[in-house]
């Protein structure tokens, strides 16, 4: 197995008079002011690493403010990249290297750098004023507080200005290139080829030759500086990973979700109507889909979240796949209409990109605390299907599944993503279109009964899976009315009959329960029985699988199962849970899945809970496993 970068030019003129050390994995974070272009630097570094054949996983960290005052702690923006010659699943626990473009970036990020880690600092940004803005009383470059790291100070502003001196640009524009200088240094440090980034610069700035030239020079200058300045006695190589053959791209969770929705509806041959109201971290789904007009996608920016779900349901009533997306506060607002979709038994997909709560909470941070909201956050007995992707690329698969289940079971499906999955990125093996499942949509065209003589359409007549037919307006002879009052079985007329109500409540529940026949069984990674099962859901997958793998390597009898279908859960869930002496449920909340597993399956699950707006570190789960199994 070998890697062939799309463009095959060789990686510069490396003189290699430094020692090269081979590493399995590296985690690096680019940190600077919001205006410093750190997201871009991180993205380019990721691409370069992916093209080189590494497995990669990334995580951006945006400031909460749009543009906090330059140089302040609130304005720090970060981008973390984990790249490896092995199969990896998380953006990394601790940093091996940190790029800090200013004191504020240093201050907020240093705690994550490992002892003796590499610390690249733009010394030009450490003036008195800069230090003060970041709340430093003495200069960390001078006061010895960094002595436990391998510090590389570079006067990046100065060097960058020299590098692009010949390009005609304003001083401000010149300084804007400094992220490429820093990037060049890091490319040298980790032996990354420049080609992909140079090409990107050429394409991106095709209309602005000065900027193109400047960025090109900055990147190369940084690279060469690394090489000639002998910044460190060594530099590093992370060889390609052994990855399943195929064509890959890097994908974030929100992108994968958008593409998944479009794929599912394209293959189902029905239009996609995405109605939403902007909210962090779900807005990007709208942005992506708004650009997909060539795929016939209709996006509606509604006046609020209630309107958005109303529009989605209205679209579904007409035969489209209505989808709506939001985050916690907006999901609350969709509860009442979700109930209507349950009662009218129309397909609709409701995306919740979870963020830190409660209330407005921590809008730019991640959390998993809307599971019980998804399960129970509506009046009455109001079951819906709930699915949750487990990685950025899995957002594609589960979006596809959400659409499939919504249509196949005429039901709302809540899709629980989170801020970490939405913005995190990993390589995605592009599927062959012909390998994707087809979703079959049947809109009836004929009455389905001739009870008392004349043909009639009975909107609540069900098939063996308890699913009713999806008759759409415009079909002659199938005129019918649906609504939120309790329906009479079969006819769908309004009914206040007590027995009918009980029957319908149980039928709606059973219909959702039947989905268990239509989804994959719960897979176990590790022994089929043993001392401990670690059960997760959603974006914690990567951290859990890595931790369990390490624990297994240490000889522990531990397995991992990840629930991507939360309502209903896979048929074998109980059996899996009961095959282990103990069950551990790590969650970024106070124990929501744990409550469900205990309540539904009566399994005495233990919780590992973190509510810090941040994903689990692998080590946190590893330690907990060790702690439990030590007892």
């Amino acid at each position: 197995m070998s890697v062939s970068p799309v463009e095959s030019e060789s990686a510069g003129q490396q003189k290699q008079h430094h020692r090269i050390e081979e590493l399995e994995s590296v985690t690096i974070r680019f940190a600077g002011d919001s205006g410093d272009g750190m997201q871009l630097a991180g993205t380019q570094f990721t691409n370069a690493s992916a093209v080189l054949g590494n497995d990669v996983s990334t995580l951006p960290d945006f400031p909460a403010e749009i543009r906090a005052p330059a140089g302040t702690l609130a304005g720090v923006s970060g981008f973390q990249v984990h790249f490896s010659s092995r199969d990896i699943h998380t953006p990394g626990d601790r940093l091996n290297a940190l790029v800090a473009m200013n004191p504020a970036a240093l201050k907020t990020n240093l705690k994550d750098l490992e002892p003796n880690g590499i610390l690249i600092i733009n010394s030009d940004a450490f003036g008195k004023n800069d230090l003060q803005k970041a709340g430093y009383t003495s200069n960390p470059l001078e006061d010895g507080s960094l002595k436990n790291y391998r510090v590389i100070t570079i006067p990046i502003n100065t060097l960058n200005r020299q590098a692009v001196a010949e390009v005609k640009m304003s001083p401000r524009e010149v300084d804007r290139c400094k992220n490429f200088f820093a990037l060049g240094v890091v490319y040298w440090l980790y032996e990354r080829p420049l080609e992909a980034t140079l090409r990107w610069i050429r394409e991106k700035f095709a209309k602005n030759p000065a900027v193109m030239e400047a960025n090109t020079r900055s990147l190369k200058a940084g690279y060469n500086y690394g090489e000639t300045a002998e910044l460190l006695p060594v530099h590093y190589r992370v060889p390609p990973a052994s990855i399943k053959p195929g064509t890959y791209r890097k994908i974030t969770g929100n992108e994968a979700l958008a593409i998944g929705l479009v794929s599912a509806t394209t293959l189902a041959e029905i239009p996609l109507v995405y109605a939403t109201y902007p909210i962090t971290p779900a807005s990007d789904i709208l942005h992506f889909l708004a650009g997909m007009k060539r795929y016939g996608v209709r996006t509606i920016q509604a006046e609020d979240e209630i309107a958005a779900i109303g529009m989605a349901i209205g679209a579904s009533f007409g035969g489209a796949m209505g989808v709506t997306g939001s985050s916690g506060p907006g999901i609350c607002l969709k509860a009442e209409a979700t109930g209507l979709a349950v009662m009218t038994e129309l397909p609709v997909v409701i995306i919740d990109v979870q963020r830190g709560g409660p209330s407005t909470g921590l809008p730019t941070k991640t959390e998993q605390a809307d599971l019980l909201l998804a399960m129970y956050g509506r009046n009455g007995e109001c079951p819906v299907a709930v699915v949750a992707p487990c990685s950025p690329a899995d957002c594609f698969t589960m979006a596809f599944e959400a659409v499939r289940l919504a249509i196949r079971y005429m039901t709302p499906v809540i899709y629980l993503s989170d801020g970490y999955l939405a913005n995190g990125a990993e390589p995605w093996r592009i599927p062959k279109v012909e390998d994707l499942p087809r979703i079959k949509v049947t809109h009836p065209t004929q009455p389905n009964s001739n009870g008392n003589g004349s043909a009639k359409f009975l909107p609540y007549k069900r098939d063996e899976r308890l699913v009713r037919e999806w008759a759409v307006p415009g079909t002659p002879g199938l005129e019918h009315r649906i609504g939120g009052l309790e329906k009479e079985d079969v006819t769908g007329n309004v009914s206040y009959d007590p027995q009918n109500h009980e029957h319908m409540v149980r039928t709606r529940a059973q219909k959702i329960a039947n989905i268990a026949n239509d989804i994959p069984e719960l897979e176990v990674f590790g022994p089929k029985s043993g001392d401990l099962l670690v059960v997760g859901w959603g974006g914690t997958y990567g951290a859990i699988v890595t931790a369990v793998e390490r624990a297994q390597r240490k000889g522990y009898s531990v397995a991992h199962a990840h629930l991507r279908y939360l309502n209903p859960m896979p048929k074998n869930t109980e059996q899996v849970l009961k095959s282990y002496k103990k069950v551990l449920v790590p969650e970024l909340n106070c124990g929501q899945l744990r409550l469900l597993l205990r309540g539904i399956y009566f399994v005495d699950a233990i919780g590992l809970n973190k509510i810090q707006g941040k994903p689990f570190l692998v080590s946190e789960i590893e330690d907990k496993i060790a702690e439990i199994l030590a007892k």
Partner: protein
Amino acid sequence: MSTVSLPTLTAKDLASDQEVRWCPGCGDYSILAQMKKALAGVGIPREKIVFISGIGCSSRFPYYMNTYGMHTIHGRAPTFATGLKVFRPDLSVWVITGDGDGLSIGGNHLIHAIRRNVDIKIILFNNEIYGLTKGQYSPTSRQGTRTKSSPLGSVEHPLRPLSIAIGAEATFVARTIDVDINHLTSILKRASEHKGTAFVEIYQNCKIFNDGVFDYATDKSVKADNTLYLEHGKPLIFGKDRNKGIRLHNLDPEVVTLDGGVSVDDLLIHDERAEEPSLAYLLSRMVYPRFPECMGVFRCIRRPTYEEQVNSQIEETIRTKGKGKLEELFASDDTWVVK
């Protein structure tokens, strides 16, 4: 009836098999009857018609029409209608709402549907009361209305539904009355023909909780003096003897009598097609007892509908850039091959 509906549709064909359950004497009955009559006349096949309502007595309406229908949740009907119409411009979509449903909980959706000019017909049954919840005052109840929730009289200033609609620049705005059956039918037909959001307020009598609030406009003995039927291009004349009119004094309307010094030429001329909605707004502000209340079409202009524009952006993109293939979508970022 066979499954193919042709323009031979009669009002009876439009009745569903459900028993109508409004209170005896409720104004809703007349509106239902006139709606069937109006739709029987416009030549739209039954299966192409969709009624969408919120919650309230009035919102039971869709159950009684043998068309497609959806009885949704309180105040949100315009949103369902918008989602449906956006990709189903072939359908004739009607929203049925009440003064509580449409103007209390649902006021915002109303404004936004109007602003977008989605091609839906919004029919607001204004009975100045919450009927279904048994008689609380509503946002259109006159100040001082005594109800269970306002035992000493309501203190809130009522909204004028048409002023709100015009504030949001509705392209079609009209008013009519439940018992004026010919006028009601003709207004519903005109709403049906309008391309864009049509907003129609119907004065509707709630027999049980607000009986008689519109007597001034329906009672034979006084109605001619208390209402004014608008006609495009015609002067604003009213009164039993058709000898009264509306003149403009600066920007204030003024009731004048057509004997003495005032002639028809001095009167305000109605122009439903005026680009600027200020005239329509001014008419919507005429309130009994100071003025006769206007009936008819206040405004009717053409502006591109929301769905026309949304869909034309899509068609135009596909026409110029080609229909998207999934393969391209998947490869919409840098790709690399692992062998």
